[in-house]
């Protein structure tokens, strides 16, 4: 799960991490008594909003409202800006970088810090990035914070504030099931205070059941993706015109790859998962149909999934939606003969995934 900036700040505040004061507004008039001077920022879930004109500075209330007026309704990437955040402008002396994420190989939380903050960590030279693991099972120990302070050559007063923030950020990382806690810049102000200038938070989707308060947060999904998500289906909209549906993440990706390598263009990506329930197949197929693909490439390696069940779901969906999209179907699994029977007249059968991909490309080109 991703979080709008203002929401992430709210959570950081809950853990006692100092963040700038700010006001959220959906209309310019909602900005009343903002901290001045302030920065008015578009609340969107993707990067690059600065370049798109989604960040403006304001010295007075009027300027702040004017900035909000210009930002609200703006389109950044695929998103319309619906909220702005008018945030206290910090008087920054120095910008640091701090984040916590996981190191998959080490199976441990990884703490990353740099004396060069304010820019994307990818653009910071490797030599000035400090990395240290937090030992799992025993958690954050003081030596880690000492090492961090030394690596960044922080003066004593800054070091103690940074250590305190790091401790709280780690508590947040654990307490909120975070994948990423990123503070960039971690700002040392001219008055000596250390503040999380910007706070980014990504929480593990799988831990949603432990954090029901996050369940309804908007995510960077298209409406159709959102609908799929609510039904527990992995569905991603792409640019192409051939809809790809398969079972299992790896197989679905591989099917998309084969299709693209054979000259097709995948237009949507739907992972049926391990389901064996015709109703769920039907639901998934309906979502795919709503994306209006010109051809559908269905690739099921059943193994244990019953092929006829899948075929039945496909057939029902097409009937319910009253659409007539050609379906190139390659279904392997128990009762695959019965599946062919069910899809007779609707689908183009194929035996291997390569064959299916080639066929889909041909059908799309009007070749059959």
């Amino acid at each position, binding site marked *: 799960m991703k979080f709008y900036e203002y929401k992430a700040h709210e959570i950081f505040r809950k853990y006692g991490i100092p963040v700038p004061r700010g006001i959220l507004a959906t209309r310019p008039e909602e900005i009343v008594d903002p901290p001045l001077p302030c920065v008015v920022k578009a609340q969107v879930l993707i990067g690059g909003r600065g370049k798109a004109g989604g960040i403006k500075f304001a010295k007075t209330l009027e300027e702040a409202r004017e900035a909000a007026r210009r930002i609200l309704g703006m389109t950044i990437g695929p998103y319309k800006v619906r909220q702005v955040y008018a945030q206290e402008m910090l008087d920054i002396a120095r910008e640091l970088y701090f984040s916590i994420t*996981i190191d*998959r*190989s080490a*199976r*441990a*939380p990884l703490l990353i810090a740099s004396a060069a903050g304010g820019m994307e960590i*990818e653009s910071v030279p490797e030599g000035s990035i400090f990395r240290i693991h937090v030992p*799992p*099972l025993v958690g954050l120990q003081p030596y880690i914070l000492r090492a961090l302070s030394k690596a960044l050559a922080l003066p004593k007063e800054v070091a103690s504030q940074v250590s305190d923030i790091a401790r709280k950020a780690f508590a947040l990382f*654990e307490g909120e*099931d975070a*994948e990423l806690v990123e503070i960039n810049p971690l700002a040392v102000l001219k008055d000596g205070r250390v503040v999380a200038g910007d706070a980014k938070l990504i929480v*593990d*989707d*799988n*831990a949603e*059941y*432990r954090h029901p308060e996050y369940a309804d947060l908007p995510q960077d999904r298209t409406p159709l993706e959102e609908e799929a998500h609510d039904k527990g289906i*992995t569905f*991603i909209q*792409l640019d192409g015109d051939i809809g790809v549906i*398969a*079972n*299992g*993440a*790896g*197989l*679905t*990706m*591989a099917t*998309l*790859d*084969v*299709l*693209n*390598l054979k000259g097709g263009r*995948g237009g949507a*990506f739907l*992972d049926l*998962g*391990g389901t064996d329930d015709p109703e769920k197949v039907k639901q998934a197929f309906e979502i795919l149909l709503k994306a209006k693909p010109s051809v559908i490439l269905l690739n099921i*390696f*059943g*193994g*244990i999934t019953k092929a006829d069940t899948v075929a039945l779901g496909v057939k029902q969906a097409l009937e319910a939606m009253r659409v007539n999209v050609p379906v190139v179907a390659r279904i*392997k*699994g128990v009762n695959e003969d019965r599946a062919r029977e069910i899809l007779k007249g609707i689908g183009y059968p194929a035996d*291997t*995934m*390569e064959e299916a991909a080639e066929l889909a490309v041909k059908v799309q080109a009007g070749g059959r």
Partner: protein
Amino acid sequence: MAVLLDEKTKLIVQGITGHQGQFHTEKMLEYGTKVVAGVTPGKGGEQVHGVSVYDSCFEAVDATGASASILFVPAPYAKDAAIEAIEAGVELLVMITERIPFHDCLDIVPYARAKGCRVIGPNCPGIVSAGKAKAGIMPNHIFRPGDVGVISRSGTLTYEIVNAITNAGFGETTCIGIGGDPVIGTSMPEALELLAKDKQTKRIVVVGEIGGTTEEETAKRARRIRKPIYAYVAGRTAPPGKRMGHAGAIISKGMGTAESKIKAFEAAGVPVAAFPTEIAALLRGN
């Protein structure tokens, strides 16, 4: 020979009375696996396909001397079940369960390691030692005993590839589905080391996907292994920044691209198949 699991391994099934647990217990028994007990709290005394159910892993292990467990318990209860199995003394824990919060795995995996228990998964199809035993959910009929070891982060894609190997006239030693999550018990390079040491395994097929850097680490390890290794990497046309189903399968910040993985394998002398079925052709070439 086989790794991790063979016809003598005594296996318990955690969550045996659930839909998945029941179904796959039957399939594992059909494959010849020694499923000696099941565990479902509160259902002790029942039977599932002739297998006795116990209330706890301790009781199941005490009664049967099982040394391995396969876990079908739903995600919110998986950590509890895993720690229980580890404490009960199992040496191999196969976690099929998907959608376990990875913070739970940050406890389970290091703790298992501390106690000398090997974890496979979570979010994996399990292990098959062809012709010997299965602790997993892979379809039985696609395997045939042979000399190819298989390692995969994926589920159905593995079936596709194993099927291609078998159809091409080859066979498998052990197929290890390591799982698609960010934090897993046995990583791809670790699984590679296991198969590299297995005498019966003459060549190894590795099925990777986008996300993380485990394929790159595997490629590095592959340089020191004297058996032929072949790879396939899924996701070369996946859009960056999108989560492709597996929590692991995401290209973010330029990390974990298929290009990088394919390059690493090829640099290590590991041929990479363009299509899943091409793996069979690569095997034939040797």
